């Protein structure tokens, strides 16, 4: 009996061992079946120039009121038979002495209720009748409405903050009698959307939703909607809206897509998904939505782009294959490519796996990628930003793109010195975006500004002379982010011989401590631009920064034309560094190699390159030129000085000579600067130890070297 049991166990073990490491199954798909059709597709609508709009009117017709901040008449943008038109209201949304229009709402019968304020932010309310008559509506001065909206039945509701208990209240506003009636306490909900008889009260962070029934006059519960809101809306940062359709259902739009919920129903279904279209854009946030008479959805973003989502019965809605993409972090540049690819290949389902989401660490993210590869679930494409590309290359985990060049070859206008930077031996990845370094200083100082060290020395001198003022020191979170950014700026000298240099590390740490202690460091997401702003505003005398978007670059070139300051591309000493961004590599263990190559081709296509993302500039020089010389690049930038004053300036597109200079620099850039996240973390931890005073610069350098050496030895 014992022998039989032992034999059974051994046999089982042998069978399972033999099963390990077996060959992958080939997925065979039945291509002969008829492909299913019919889904929502995206279309852009051109409403002409939009100045400042509020929410869509609660009417059957698509109507968008444009406040036209200023003394010009208020306009209404409409969709008539699917075509955009604009009508003049015949009056503007300001009152005497209160010439700054704020909010407005349009009633079903054409009345426009609005709020306006003066330079002391005292608020007044008015109404423009459909016939064009404008009059002030006297409402209690202690009630300041944060938002208001007309219901389909013509009644006006608003939310105002009660100063006494810091809670928001829902009011019924009677514009005829100039009376307000408090209906209920909305607590933290400061936004309202009216659908039929129900008022949906939400807060900007997306944490909760309350519902008020105007028929019964009470708050009501909708558990399904509440659960959905909690699980799906948190983190949308106010980029969501609730509106009605002609079918009596409630629609919710957010970055994740458009959802439909029938009142009293037990589910919230997704009608339009957000991943593969512009709804999911991180740059262009969804603001408001509405439905048109034909059942299509009309959405406006915070950059006033208007899009329509309509049902196309001929559009393919069945996926015949999957493309798995792995990225360490969320990336708008990648998502732009995903959207462009999804449009070209609607039959391919694109799955984007983000490694470091939900507060996962780099270590966890990389381990999960390793586990996926080991379990035959390897991604097809990897966005390599932050990963150790050399290590992946050495192990043969990335396909040599030279061997399949015909499948992804981009146009001739793509700058190959940048996009195909990884040329040693095999071509393992292609950069779809890039950033550059730049520097700026006064005309007399510019000759001395050849490196980061020079910038710090100039700053030291200016501090001693009292020529620059001091701001507040960065808090810990901003300091950590700032350190991680400045490591990129100094990577060249830290790793000058290919490996880390202890003396260079110690010197770098000491310089950062000087800048930090004297509050010369700036915080903020767009460091290069903020560095330039700080210098232009007189808060610093020199800057070395990294520039990753067109807008950031134009902030640098502004200084030359509009001040005594001058700028130059590069970090100095003849170095032509660039930072490859959105590095795409094909995983050798992935199933869909051809599809992955097609994705790279899409990412490098002109259409995709034209998208304006903050992570990196286009690698296509023709597209880059168009973007940098586009009039839409004009925008105002502001910087709050340490003395409380505000410095503002307006950037403008490049002149031909400036563009040629920049393109020339980019085409001759020959030094890629890349650091993987683990290396950056090791250096950043040591830097923080020095900046917080726990260690000297030498001790911190010793700590960093110890970690880097261990990493190298492995």
């Amino acid at each position: 009996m014992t022998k039989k049991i032992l034999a059974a166990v051994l046999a089982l073990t042998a069978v399972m061992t033999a099963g390990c490491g077996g060959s992958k199954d080939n997925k065979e798909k039945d291509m002969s079946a008829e492909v299913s059709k019919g889904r929502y597709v995206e279309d852009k609508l051109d409403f002409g120039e939009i100045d400042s709009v509020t929410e869509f009117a609660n009417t059957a017709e698509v109507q968008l009121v444009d406040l036209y901040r200023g003394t010009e008449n208020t306009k209404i943008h409409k969709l008539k038979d699917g075509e955009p038109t604009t009508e003049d209201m015949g009056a503007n949304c300001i009152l005497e002495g209160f010439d700054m229009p704020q909010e407005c709402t349009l009633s079903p019968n054409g009345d426009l209720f609005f709020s306006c304020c003066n330079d002391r932010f005292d608020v007044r309310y008015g109404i423009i009748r459909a016939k064009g008559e404008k009059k002030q509506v006297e409402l209690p001065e202690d009630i300041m409405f944060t938002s208001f909206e007309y219901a389909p039945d013509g009644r006006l509701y608003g939310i105002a903050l009660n100063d006494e208990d810091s809670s928001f209240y829902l009011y019924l506003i009677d514009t005829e009698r100039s009376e307000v009636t408090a209906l209920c306490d909305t607590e933290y909900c400061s936004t309202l959307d009216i659908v039929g008889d129900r008022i949906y009260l939400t807060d900007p962070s997306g944490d909760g939703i309350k519902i008020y029934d105007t028929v019964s006059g009470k708050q009501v519960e909708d558990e399904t909607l509440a659960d959905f809101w909690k699980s799906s809306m948190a983190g949308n940062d106010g980029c969501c809206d609730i509106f009605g359709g002609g079918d009596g259902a409630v629609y919710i739009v957010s970055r994740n897509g458009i959802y439909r919920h029938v009142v009293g129903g037990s589910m919230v279904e997704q009608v339009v998904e957000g991943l593969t279209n512009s709804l999911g854009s991180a740059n262009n946030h969804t603001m408001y939505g509405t439905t048109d008479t034909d059942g299509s959805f009309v959405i406006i973003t915070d950059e006033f782009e208007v899009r329509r989502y309509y049902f196309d019965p001929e559009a393919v809605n069945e996926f015949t294959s999957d493309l798995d993409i792995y990225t360490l972090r969320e990336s708008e540049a990648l998502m732009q490519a995903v959207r462009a690819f999804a449009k070209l290949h609607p039959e391919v389902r694109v799955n984007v796996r983000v490694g470091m989401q939900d507060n996962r660490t780099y270590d966890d993210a990389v381990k999960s990628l390793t586990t996926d590869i080991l379990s035959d679930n390897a991604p097809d494409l990897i966005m390599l930003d932050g990963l150790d590309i050399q290590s992946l290359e050495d192990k043969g985990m990335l396909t040599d793109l030279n061997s399949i060049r015909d499948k992804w070859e981009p146009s001739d206008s793509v700058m190959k010195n940048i996009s195909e930077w990884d040329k040693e031996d095999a071509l393992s990845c292609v950069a779809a975006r890039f950033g550059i370094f730049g520097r700026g200083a006064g005309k007399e100082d510019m000759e001395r500004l050849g490196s980061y060290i020079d910038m710090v020395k100039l700053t030291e001198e200016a501090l001693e002379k009292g020529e620059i003022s001091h701001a507040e020191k960065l808090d810990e979170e901003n300091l950590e982010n700032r350190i991680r950014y400045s490591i990129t700026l100094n990577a060249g000298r830290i790793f000058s011989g290919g490996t880390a240099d202890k003396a260079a590390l110690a010197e770098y740490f000491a310089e950062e401590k000087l800048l930090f202690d004297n509050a010369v460091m700036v915080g903020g997401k767009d460091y290069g631009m903020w560095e330039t702003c700080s210098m232009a505003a007189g808060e610093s005398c020199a800057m070395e920064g990294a520039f990753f978007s067109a807008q950031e670059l134009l902030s640098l070139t502004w200084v030359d034309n509009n001040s005594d300051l001058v700028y130059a591309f590069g970090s100095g000493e003849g170095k032509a560094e660039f930072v490859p961004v959105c590095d795409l590599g094909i995983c050798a263990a992935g199933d869909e190699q051809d599809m992955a190559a097609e994705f790279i081709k899409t990412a490098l296509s002109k259409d995709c390159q034209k998208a304006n993302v903050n992570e990196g500039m286009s690698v296509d020089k023709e597209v880059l030129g168009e973007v940098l010389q586009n009039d839409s690049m004009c925008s105002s930038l502001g910087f709050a000085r340490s003395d409380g004053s505000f410095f503002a300036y307006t950037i403008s597109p490049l002149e031909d000579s400036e563009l040629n200079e920049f393109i020339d620099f980019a085409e001759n850039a020959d030094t890629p600067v890349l650091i993987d996240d683990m290396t950056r973390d090791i250096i950043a931890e040591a830097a923080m130890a020095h900046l917080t005073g726990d260690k000297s610069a030498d001790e911190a350098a010793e700590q960093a070297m110890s970690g880097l050496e261990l990493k190298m030895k492995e």
Partner: protein
Amino acid sequence: MSFLLPSLLGTGIFSVLPFADSLRRSFFRTVSGDFCGTENYRAVFSNEAFLLAVKNTALFTAVFLPVLITLSFLTAYFISGLKFMRVIRSVLLFPLAVPTAALVLVWKLLFQPAGMVNGVLTVCGADTVSFLDSGAAFGVLVGSYIWKNLGYTVLLWLTGISGISSSLSEAAKVDGAGRLQIMRHIILPNLKPTMYTITVISFLNSFKVFREAYLVAGAYPHRSIYLMQHLFNNWFSNFELDKMSAATVAVFGVILAAVSLLQRAWDKEARA
């Protein structure tokens, strides 16, 4: 034998099978799957990081084991005659119940540059010590692990001590033996089976000290506390599975040899 089947199956599936796979992988390259003979083993044994990790782990075991065994025995011996043993047993098990993450937080409070220990040192006029980023990290690691495992080990000793017939000690006292003589000639010889168990368990536990070091100092800590598990953790992240498998087999061989030697020595003693 049939009652062992469930455990045997579990061990077979979750321990033997993965080890067999590691053994197989140690002779193949990870990505290409090509057979490479002993190349992985050669790469491992010539890898500086591996040699450092082995040295640190061996040093940790060589320091931790004798100190833990000695300290726990002495503690058990001296408290074995006390009252309220039930309460004492519960208190002894408390360190084991403390979650590692909580323990690490306490470490940081005590030992970071601006921590409480350095605060005391500063008040006393001494220089501060970088406990977690210098050679002192090794001492902190050993001390912390001894603190965590002391209670459990004392309990094992107490169990052994309580199994010794009191008539032996009493007879020795009648013959004029002192406390030390009783400990040396009666208690210790009768505790050899317990010592063997404690030694094997503590030896195996010494390889599990990674969690604390990783939570405090990350994937690349100070050199003095860079242990084998750090290396395995990083190799897994970097997809160096071939080297990891070869190192695993090598470590298994060392542990198996050590436990076998111990078993042989014990068997010799038992026969004698």
